[in-house]
């Protein structure tokens, strides 16, 4: 792997360079407490130190709503509406979210290639950014706190710039084509990188490894936590809609008024909604709020073969953005048997 340094004074120039290559998105402060990935007009608006965005980066490749084809009932034809493949650059993606995208790939590319997702993904550039955890983060126990793949460049904070890890050929080209922004790294930079990582590791409120969480949960499906906590649940789906790895969708046909055609749209669904488990004939696999609540805990802790991690990457969004203040991490620890910090 190649390493270079991006000095602090060159950061905005480098962002300008990225902006000239396509549509640039990055973290922005959108309100007092929240951040989101938004299109970057003025590169000075990029927020380098943010905790988490309200929408996950999967939205760039799997939008919350898209038309998959239009239909013509007169000639009995369908016309796929594939994305154009315009280049997009997503700057400032944290390690957990990069693993989240790889988990999305495992379902939308490796499994059954989805041309809509795949086209956008192939035309996307991912620039990772280091971060320091807050009390909601638990990527460390999910083994998603440090990524070795899934990014083109990854920027690690140094006192006077960034140590840049190059992850792909595309990343190499970004460096090669703009050598004026980069320097070779010094031994001081290496020390500072190690210090940052050590500081970061010490800040997590949970330590250890949760690879066995799945089994603990499976062994305690009747744990009283589920009833107590699902009682607080609003069923609003915010936990799943902000999750970087939720991938359930619903499709709907919208006919034109004259009935001569229409479009089929797909949009994000949530297992927290009643209709998610509803099938033909009126049977519902998850008829109660508790059933739906439990489903998310099981699904997020299942094993993804591609990343060898759980489907949950420990980003903390489902807790941070829960209007009912339901604590996912604490609840998992309770079932695991610790009742509080591991």
């Amino acid at each position: 792997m190649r390493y270079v340094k991006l000095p602090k004074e060159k950061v905005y120039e480098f962002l300008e360079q990225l902006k000239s290559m396509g549509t640039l998105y990055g973290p922005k402060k959108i309100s007092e407490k929240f951040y989101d990935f938004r299109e970057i007009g003025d590169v000075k608006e990029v927020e380098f130190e943010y905790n988490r965005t309200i929408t996950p980066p999967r939205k760039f490749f799997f939008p919350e709503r898209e038309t998959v084809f239009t239909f013509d009932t007169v000639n009995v034809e369908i016309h796929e509406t594939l994305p154009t493949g315009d280049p997009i650059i997503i700057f400032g993606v944290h390690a957990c979210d990069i693993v989240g995208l790889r988990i999305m790939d495992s379902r939308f590319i490796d499994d059954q290639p989805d041309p809509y997702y795949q086209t956008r993904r192939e035309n996307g550039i991912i620039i990772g950014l280091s971060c320091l955890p807050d009390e909601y983060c638990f990527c460390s126990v999910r083994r998603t706190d440090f990524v070795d793949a899934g990014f083109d460049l990854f920027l690690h904070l140094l006192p006077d710039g960034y140590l840049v890890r190059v992850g792909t050929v595309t990343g190499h080209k970004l460096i090669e084509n703009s050598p004026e922004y980069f320097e070779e790294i010094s031994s001081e930079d290496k020390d500072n990188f190690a210090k940052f990582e050590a500081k970061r590791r010490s800040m997590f409120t949970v330590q250890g490894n949760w690879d066995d969480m799945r089994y603990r949960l499976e062994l305690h499906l009747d744990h009283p936590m589920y009833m107590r906590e699902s009682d607080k649940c609003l069923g609003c789906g915010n936990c799943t809609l902000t999750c970087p790895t939720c991938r359930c969708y619903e499709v709907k046909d919208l006919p034109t008024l004259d009935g001569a055609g229409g479009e089929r749209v797909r949009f994000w669904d949530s297992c927290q909604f009643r209709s998610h488990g509803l099938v033909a004939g009126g049977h519902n696999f998850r008829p109660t709020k508790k059933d739906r609540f439990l489903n998310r805990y099981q699904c997020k802790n299942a094993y993804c073969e591609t990343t060898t991690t759980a489907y949950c990457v420990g980003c903390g969004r489902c807790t941070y953005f829960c209007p009912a203040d339901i604590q996912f991490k604490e609840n998992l620890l309770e079932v695991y048997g610790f009742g509080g910090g591991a």
Partner: protein
Amino acid sequence: MILPDHEIIEECRDVCRATVGVYVLTSCYGCQLVMATVQKIMEVANLVDFKCFYMVSSKSSLHEPVDIAFVEGSVSTEKDLEELKEVRKNAKVLVAIGACAVNGGVQSWSEGDLDYDKLYASVYGNSKIKYKGLQAAPIDSYVKVDYYLPGCPPEEDEIMYFLSTFLFGSYPEEIDYPVCAECRLAGNPCILIERDAPCLGPITVAGCKARCPSFGVPCIGCRGPVPHDNSWFDSLALAFRNKGYSKDYIRERMKIFCSHDKNLEERLDKAFGRKK
């Protein structure tokens, strides 16, 4: 395959013309106004025969059979009730449109607190009015309703979706999730979390694309409760209580558009009877 409990009409295309009626009981006529001013109103008028639509034609009649009836307003007088029964008798598909028809509207705010006689006395004293009044109620208190199109007023895209699916020989899919979800999809910051705003987005049925919260205004619940008993008044009341709101305040606010929901009082009691 259409489930038997979904009433549909025959697909017409260029063979026939669907007949449509737009009726009004006690309300502000706002739903009719939105229906009459949809961008594609001329296209709609070319495709269907309106047998009744007071806002656009004085040649409106309650007494003709129609394929699709849209009924606006709550049942608040004996006359409303007679008209509603007549509409139901003449309609193949009946759609309750707007907050009043679907949930009783703001005129139902005092439901469960003040009965008809007390309400009458506080407004009219000893005076007489032309019609015999009734306690305001959603139309499904009296007749079978096939579909619900909520909102105060309803959204144009939903009106068009309902019309186009009916004319296609199909039916509109019901929404069973809250405004809160649409708000997140819209990329809004959460005003309930951030500002402790008394936002009813989590209990209110979606479809408006979080119109008010998108402007930083807390949802007042005009679309009514999420259907199928999935409006969790108790969970939201608990969240509000933890932010310092009183039971009376929460109850008053939820009652504006949800006063006829059978779960409201029980779930509020559950939230406030529980130890913190």
